[in-house]
């Protein structure tokens, strides 16, 4: 087969890289976090025209709070389901074990930086979950825990009044809005950039919906995973 044709074929041939379980969990996370960010921003910027517009779109101040708490419920349910998935299903457990951070991830990250700067000639050879996926996963896990804990204190303040000092509520509020801003700017925008906007992917990567990746991109971005699948004869 001529090389050009081969190239086209490898771009057209796709494999399902992300299974339905993960896609559904990701979708629930995406919906709940989007709602939480929009209703949270409305509160944070309540005195600006932008905040007032958001509050109006969300059906008023009370409804804004209700949507925020319903979305928080969806997020917590998703987290709980995810924990069950990685703890008690073989498939989920295997995915999770590949998500654990290793020294190699930090080496890969350094190598990628050096490659980007032009100091290194070769890109690091990345596996199914590279430093990119892992850093995002663990950062998100950490921030979600912070948001759930601080959000719980604020939500059930009357109960916590019997337990915590006043300054803890003030700190919880500052942490909740600070981490919320962080999640919006660092995680959501960065993540959005990585998966949709970065060169080669623009304008949208549909793998969050169908879980599919082309053979070509699999080989480029996850060469170790590509090789393993090839050896197993799965490609």
């Amino acid at each position, binding site marked *: 087969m001529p090389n050009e044709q081969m190239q086209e074929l490898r771009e057209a041939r796709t494999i399902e890289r992300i299974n339905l379980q993960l896609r559904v969990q990701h979708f629930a996370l995406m919906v709940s976090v989007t709602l939480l960010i929009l209703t949270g921003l409305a509160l944070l910027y309540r005195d600006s025209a932008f905040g007032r517009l958001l509050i109006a779109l969300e059906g008023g101040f009370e409804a804004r709070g209700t949507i925020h708490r319903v979305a928080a419920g969806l997020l917590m349910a998703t987290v709980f389901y995810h924990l069950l998935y990685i703890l008690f299903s073989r498939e989920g457990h295997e995915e999770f074990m590949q998500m654990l951070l290793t020294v190699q991830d930090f080496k890969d990250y350094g190598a990628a930086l050096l*490659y980007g700067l*032009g100091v290194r000639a070769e890109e690091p050879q990345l596996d199914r979950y590279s430093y990119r996926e892992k850093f995002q996963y663990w950062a998100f896990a950490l921030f979600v825990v912070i948001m759930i804990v601080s959000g719980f204190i604020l939500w059930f303040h*009357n109960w916590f*009044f019997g337990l915590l000092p006043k*300054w803890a*509520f003030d700190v919880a509020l500052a942490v909740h809005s600070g*981490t919320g801003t962080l999640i919006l700017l*660092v995680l959501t925008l960065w993540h959005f950039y990585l998966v949709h906007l*970065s060169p080669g992917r623009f304008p949208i990567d549909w793998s969050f919906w169908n879980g599919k990746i082309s053979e070509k991109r699999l080989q480029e971005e996850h060469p170790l995973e590509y090789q393993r699948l090839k050896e197993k004869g799965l490609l």
Partner: protein
Amino acid sequence: MRMIALSGTLLVLLSALTAGQTPTDCWDCHGDRLDRAAFESSVHKDLACTDCHGDVQSVPHEQQPARPTTQVCAGCHPSQASEYQQSIHGRARAQGIGEAAHCADCHSAHTVFSKADPRSSVFVRNLPQTCGRCHENSGLSERFGIAAHRYSTYWESYHGLSVKYGNLIAANCSSCHGSHLILAAADPSSSIHPQNLLQTCGRCHPNASANLLKGKVHVEAKLSVSPGVYAVHVFYIIFLGVFAALFLLHVALDIIRWLRRRHA
């Protein structure tokens, strides 16, 4: 209450007879500077001008009448006036501190409405502005050593937010500080004295524990006021700055990488 109303009405009749001035005469000159419609819908609509401005003997009057004192209001509102006289405001004024609020400073002069009336300066949603005129940044804190930013810190708080967006049950200034009998926090009989604070908070939050009293009610992200909140703010400003810089670096590197891969 009925006694007060009755004596008030009597006072009106009496003064109308003795002084002989009707509000109509006054409006001839003062109609352009005072909102007649607002006054005539106020709680004092049935009073004659001279009931409060007793030193005006004839129309027109040569001398500018004195501002009505607390004693004038006390004529109809004796219990409020006596509470006021024991308050920090009343005592400060008795000591000659003219800046201390008296009746009209909070209730306004000619547009006194019931506190349930949204037009009232002491209506729940307007009260923070009214108190804030002196307790935000009027310079009183420098001159008398009292805390400033009481208005903004309240509006930013949970209580302020609730009141602002329609939950009028949430605490306003007077819920914690009282109204006529406002006392300094250092005064043992003050509702916000540390020994009474738990009881004051407990009126709305029965679950409040002694531990809750640690920390400021009026929170400011300053090291000297709320160090925890201040530390969180500083941390996030630095953290966000660093991450924003890293993100931009990442984007730049990605573009370089992509170009290198294409031209490889």
